[in-house]
């Protein structure tokens, strides 16, 4: 009887300790998610009238919205452009830093520093690089006798410019994880390979890269989340333009909610984003974490 009371007391203490976190999570994560789902089923009231329930009407509007498809396509291209590039660069950087080259400390600092900056500051700096007449890149091209490119104003080039900037910012962050993994690799592997006369390239592809697979998957998940989450640079560089050429999903949500005042449509787009994130989360928890063991 006493033991059951003690057990009950422990349960109660535990629940109390969890309470602050639970309240905050409910307020800013769970409730908003449910509210978003519900909101996406309404159309905004006209001139202050209450919103009306329309079921899946918003989703039909979404499917017919060419801008939405443009934005979704952009996000996909953006993800495909930034993720493999930054991961490959991060791996190369980690290999460089790990190889005990002269000036290693400087090199590592150079690679990692962009990560410490706020995205908005990075965007400011690159804004000048990309500026049409007076910008650094076009001045350089001019000095070489080539005509300048409208880096942020040309719909065909703008997204690539944004991608390049993002890769610059992100690669150093992923480098850290690769570096840790490389430093954790047992040196006996390298020695054994040397004894057999394996070339460095072969060693990399057959030993190092497969052993780094968990890190690569981890970095991949992180990069996927960032491709959805980070839209700060758009506020400075392009504001989603020209003509939605660089618009991304989260920025489109922001526009709909705070520029067009269409909260229900924003909620609908948010549901799409949540779905994408849910898929990423499922991949992480179901597939990746089967290797790691949460005690």
């Amino acid at each position: 009887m006493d033991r059951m009371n003690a057990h009950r007391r422990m349960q109660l203490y535990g629940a109390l300790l969890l309470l602050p976190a639970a309240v905050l999570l409910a307020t800013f994560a769970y409730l908003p998610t449910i509210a978003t789902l519900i909101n996406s089923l309404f159309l905004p009231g006209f001139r202050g009238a209450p919103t009306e329930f329309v079921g899946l009407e918003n989703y039909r509007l979404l499917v017919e919205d060419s801008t939405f498809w443009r934005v979704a396509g952009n996000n996909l291209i953006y993800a495909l452009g930034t993720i493999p590039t930054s991961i490959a660069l991060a791996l190369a950087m980690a290999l460089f830093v790990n190889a005990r080259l002269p000036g290693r400390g400087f090199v590592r600092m150079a690679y990692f520093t962009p990560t410490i900056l706020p995205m908005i500051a990075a965007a400011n700096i690159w804004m000048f690089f990309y500026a049409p007449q007076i910008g650094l890149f076009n001045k350089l091209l001019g000095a070489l006798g080539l005509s300048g490119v409208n880096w942020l104003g040309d719909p065909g080039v703008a997204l690539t410019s944004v991608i390049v900037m993002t890769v610059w910012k992100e690669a150093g962050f992923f480098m850290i994880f690769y570096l840790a993994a490389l430093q954790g690799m047992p040196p006996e592997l390298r020695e054994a390979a040397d004894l057999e006369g394996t070339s460095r390239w072969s060693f990399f592809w057959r030993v190092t890269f497969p052993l780094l697979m968990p890190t690569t998957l981890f970095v991949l998940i992180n990069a996927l989340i960032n491709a959805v989450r980070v839209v700060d640079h758009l506020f400075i560089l392009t504001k989603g333009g020209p003509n939605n050429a660089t618009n991304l999903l989260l920025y489109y949500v922001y526009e709909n909610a705070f520029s067009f005042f269409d909260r229900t449509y924003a909620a609908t787009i948010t549901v799409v984003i949540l779905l994408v994130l849910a898929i990423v989360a499922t991949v992480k928890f179901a597939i990746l974490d089967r290797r790691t063991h949460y005690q």
Partner: protein
Amino acid sequence: MSQASHPAARRFALRVPSLETTAAWLLAIVWIFPLLYAVWAAFHPPAFMVRFDLFAPLTLDNFANAWAQAPFARYYLNTFLLVTGVVLAQFVVCTLAGFAFARFPIPGKDVLFMLVLIQLFVFPEVLIVENYRIASTLGLVDTITGIGLPYVASAFGIFLLRQTFKTIPRELEDAARIEGCGWIAILLKVYVPLAKPTYLAYGLVSISHHWNNFLWPLVVTNSVESRPLTVGLGVFSAPETGVNWATVSAATLLSIAPLLIAFLLFQRQFVQSFLRSGIR
């Protein structure tokens, strides 16, 4: 070493590193260039934006202009208060929750923990529309609390602390209990001190994240009263205002200086910290 004993391998080893070193250095220079450029542009008059004249005169005018054109002192204060407040609150809330998950038999603990982990993917920015409405209802719009509150219950922090607390041997807890300590005393005397490295690592990551956070602060603040540096910088250099680049560079440096200097001084801790936190 096996390399030294094999002459062919040694010759091979001598040739390739220099190519590798060159590539590494080139990439490093390309990578650090934008930041170096910002420093150049901020400390030289606007005429030298693209003229890389080594003997160009240094000037602090750009900084003076930037300081005069936007209330950076207020932005600094806001950011400092925000970051300190958020990190301290996170320490408290996540410690309590992590401790609960690590040591208490809560019914449905595993399900609850999964729910917590969901927050890793359902972060405040995704739910920006609803969170703004909630913040508005709670009267938190344009307050520093409003900027920080959604982040206080951090799934990441709870995860890290739960992990760390689980590794602390129960014998230490038992020893404290024999001395008559209640749960809170055990938490504060045994668990928290032993988790210091985790607090440091998490703290640095959190500080960087919140110093650099932009989207949510942008939405939730609408005046200088509560605006942090990132939003201030964003507002300042919005393309429509036609501010000159040298001033923008100076403003940018002003915004990033404290974190950047802290990073350059404590590189090892920062890097270790981001590393440790990579268990997400």
